[in-house]
């Protein structure tokens, strides 16, 4: 079931936006024609493979590749010596600045291997078999070092130190010695001591979550070719071809213009493809061998060497008065960053209390390096983790106060005009409308069965805008092509075509959306942060508006009137000049057919830096059934309501919401990186790393709440991040309701749940 609740003010006459046309990528995907990263090949290409550290922490004493180089069929071997030794420098390349030294060291270890799976060398050979044989012949001498994988162990005094140069930032004064704590984040308001003292009820709990992977089906893959003149070509699956271009140029010391990157169809990213792993290595191998080089990760490599998101330890303390008013909150977050600084704990600190209007709180976050893969973004980075803790705590407050879980959230809800806990004053938000949508749903009123429990949780994400470029070209038959620089990871081709069609007055079937390589369209930030439909969509609409302006100008010339006397409506120029009543409308087809005679082709390109992205809120309701004999938890009903601004293509938006829920349910129930005592990942494959499949889940119902964002031409807000924020807590709260025991440690696997039930009974 799905429904859309539209705020009356958003109502407008729209012919395309808000409809559900067939998706433009559908036919290629269901017929197998879509070309993913691993599907691309070049004549004469070699196979590239990476040798990875078997140790969680080790000094690389020496690398002897002599025997590997001598193996017939081996064309190149590269190590860190083949890459520039970069200085520490923050550089804008993806969504945010990255430290180029850390990026380079993650691509290829230099001096030390910092996690099991860290790349230490790579080969290019004529076949996979030869490449594998060559890897076995490379002799790496390691000095194994003590390692640390758990976040609190890494923070402890005397913990094995990953980086001798790492001094904690964000403290009042620079610490005297290096540590694994990269940064402290802190935010406060009011007086929590006084507020806790005034509370009638206080809840306090330690919560933990484990590192989990984005779990995209398509592994990282690329083909790279370094020509004799230094010009480079890369074909790869990523969330941003411009990001790949920038990072490859920096890691290899090349000019941006030397490198052209063509995006492949992407088989999932969810934030995990917002950085580079293979591409610079493939380029280095191509330079060394003189051949194109293709690299495709195995699933084992994806798990061991690409970014999961953080595992965490969190403490949450809440105080409330008897009427449910939350008087004080104290939140402390400790997040694994992996081998290099940069966990999403900063964003977690900002989102932690964003749904609540609070006068007194402190939030402290710690970014901690560990001997685990460097974390990468994962939908709403950091927010699901902290929402698990905070929403569990609010649920506990409601239980202790005997309050309805929606009532306690409505009582403390942020509204337009509320100063958010992270600072800004909210405008045009649809949070209380989203709470009301769940309160009024059939699901909320439905009875529960035996061994079942119901949980509710809410979530927030900022959404962003940023730099985007789009072009609209009109063909001589009046059809249109929309070109952008953003890989389509969640339906952006459909939304771009629809917004262009709406603006031009064309049927959407006459608009073809395309994603261009880095030499064929202006710069766009990567696809992520729920920014593409908002920001790139804004560029598309502005480009289409420029096309319409040109069409009106040409019609005015034909009619010998002013452009003000020409309106564009329904894909036609209409003459408003009362002195020319005989002028019949000119269609886009008619104007396009004569474009050569009227000044040339009709097209426009717009580049912009979109500001004013509207934040999103979600409210999720989950029913679970717990097997009393095994502890197995089944989600039996789930409804997710979300403020989406305006759903450009509602079916895609529903899909985004359902996808986020499915991933969140997996995070809550089953998924976790498991390390052995040597710091090696024990479950680097889908057989042992259990993600939900379709048969694990019921139909996930959605309610789209439309409170429009006035800064977008059609009112759109980003939708891809919010839906993964509430599920962890919604599931955990439902399990608590079913078994009567608070579940503070994820995942809620059957043994964990069974043990909790045993404790309750014992």
């Amino acid at each position: 079931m799905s429904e859309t609740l539209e705020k009356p003010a958003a109502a407008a006459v729209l012919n395309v936006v808000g409809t559900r046309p067939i998706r433009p990528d559908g036919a290629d995907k269901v017929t197998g024609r879509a070309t993913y990263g691993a599907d691309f090949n070049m004549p004469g290409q070699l196979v590239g493979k990476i040798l990875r550290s078997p140790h969680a922490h080790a000094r690389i004493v020496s690398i002897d590749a002599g025997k590997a180089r001598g193996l017939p069929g081996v064309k190149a071997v590269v190590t860190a010596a083949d890459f520039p030794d970069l200085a520490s420098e923050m550089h804008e390349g993806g969504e945010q600045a990255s430290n180029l030294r850390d990026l380079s060291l993650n691509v290829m270890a230099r001096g030390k291997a910092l996690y099991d799976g860290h790349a230490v060398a790579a080969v290019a050979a004529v076949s996979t078999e030869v490449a594998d044989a060559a890897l076995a012949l490379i002799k790496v001498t390691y000095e194994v070092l003590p390692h640390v994988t758990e976040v609190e162990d890494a923070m402890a005094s005397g913990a094995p130190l990953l980086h001798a140069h790492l001094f904690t930032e964000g403290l009042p004064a620079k610490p005297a010695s290096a540590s694994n704590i990269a940064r402290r984040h802190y935010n406060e308001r009011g007086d929590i001591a006084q507020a806790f003292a005034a509370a009638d009820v206080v809840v306090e709990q330690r919560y933990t979550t484990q590192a989990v992977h984005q779990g995209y089906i398509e592994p990282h893959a690329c083909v790279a070719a370094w020509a004799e003149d230094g010009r480079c070509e890369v074909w790869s699956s990523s969330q941003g071809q411009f990001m790949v271009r920038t990072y490859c140029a920096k890691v290899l010391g090349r000019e941006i213009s030397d490198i052209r990157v063509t995006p492949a169809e992407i088989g999932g990213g969810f934030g995990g493809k917002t950085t580079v792993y293979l591409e610079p290595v493939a380029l280095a191998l191509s330079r060394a061998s003189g051949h194109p080089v293709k690299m495709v990760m195995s699933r084992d490599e994806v798990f061991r060497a690409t970014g999961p998101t953080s595992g965490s330890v969190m403490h949450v303390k809440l105080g409330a008065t008897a009427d449910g008013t939350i008087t004080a909150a104290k939140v402390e977050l400790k997040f694994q960053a992996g081998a290099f600084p940069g966990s999403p704990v900063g964003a977690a600190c900002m989102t932690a209390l964003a749904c609540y209007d609070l006068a007194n709180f402190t939030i402290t976050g710690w970014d901690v390096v560990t001997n685990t893969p460097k974390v990468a973004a994962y939908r709403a980075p950091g927010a699901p983790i902290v929402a698990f803790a905070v929403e569990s705590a609010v649920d506990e407050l409601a239980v202790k106060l005997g309050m309805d879980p929606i009532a306690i959230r409505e009582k403390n809800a942020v509204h337009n005009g509320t100063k958010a806990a992270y600072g800004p004053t909210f405008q045009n938000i649809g949070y209380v409308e989203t709470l009301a949508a769940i309160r009024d749903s059939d699901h909320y009123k439905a009875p529960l069965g035996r061994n079942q429990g119901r949980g509710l949780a809410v979530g927030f994400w900022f959404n962003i805008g940023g730099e985007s470029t789009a072009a609209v070209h009109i063909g001589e038959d009046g059809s249109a092509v929309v070109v952008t620089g953003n890989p389509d990871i969640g339906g952006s081709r459909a939304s771009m075509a629809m917004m262009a069609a709406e603006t031009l007055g064309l049927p959407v079937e006459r608009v073809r959306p395309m994603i261009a390589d880095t030499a064929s369209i202006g710069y766009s930030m990567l696809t992520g942060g729920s920014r593409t439909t908002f920001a790139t969509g804004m560029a598309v609409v502005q480009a289409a508006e420029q096309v319409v302006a040109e069409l009106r100008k040409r019609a005015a010339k034909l009619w010998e009137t002013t452009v003000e006397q020409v309106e564009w409506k329904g894909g036609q120029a209409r003459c408003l000049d009362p002195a020319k009543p005989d002028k019949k409308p000119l269609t886009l087809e008619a104007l396009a057919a004569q474009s050569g005679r009227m000044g040339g082709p009709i097209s426009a390109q717009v580049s912009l830096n979109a500001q004013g992205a509207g934040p999103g809120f979600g409210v999720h309701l989950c029913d679970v059934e717990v097997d009393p004999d095994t502890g197995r938890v089944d989600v039996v009903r789930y409804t997710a309501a979300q403020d989406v601004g305006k759903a450009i293509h509602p079916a895609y938006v529903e899909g985004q919401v359902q996808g986020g829920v499915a991933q969140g349910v997996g995070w809550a129930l089953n998924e976790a990186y498991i390390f052995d005592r040597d710091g090696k990942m024990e479950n680097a494959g889908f057989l042992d790393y259990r993600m939900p499949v379709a048969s694990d889940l019921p139909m996930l119902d959605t309610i789209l709440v439309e409170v429009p964002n006035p800064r977008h031409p059609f009112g759109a807000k980003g939708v891809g991040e919010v839906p993964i924020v509430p599920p962890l807590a919604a599931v955990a709260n439902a399990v608590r309701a079913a078994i009567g025991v608070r579940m503070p440690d994820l995942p809620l696997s059957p043994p964990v749940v069974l043990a909790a039930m045993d404790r309750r009974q014992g």
Partner: protein
Amino acid sequence: MAHVVAGSDCWPFTGGVSAFDVEAATVRELIGALDARFPGLGDFIDRKMAFAIDGEIHQDAWFSPIGPDSEVYLIPKIGGG
């Protein structure tokens, strides 16, 4: 004058001061004015912070306007997945 609020990330530059009034008509002018008052802060906030102007977040946008009575929150730049 715009009222500016800076979080803990900025405190090493401001000596712990978290709120101040600044004469600035754009984000770029604000960056310059804050750097003049707290040396080093301008470069820091230009690289690492977003500007929530009257509730609307502006990121990497030097010429976004700031009103004479605007409230500007400096918050860490936001990304996503």
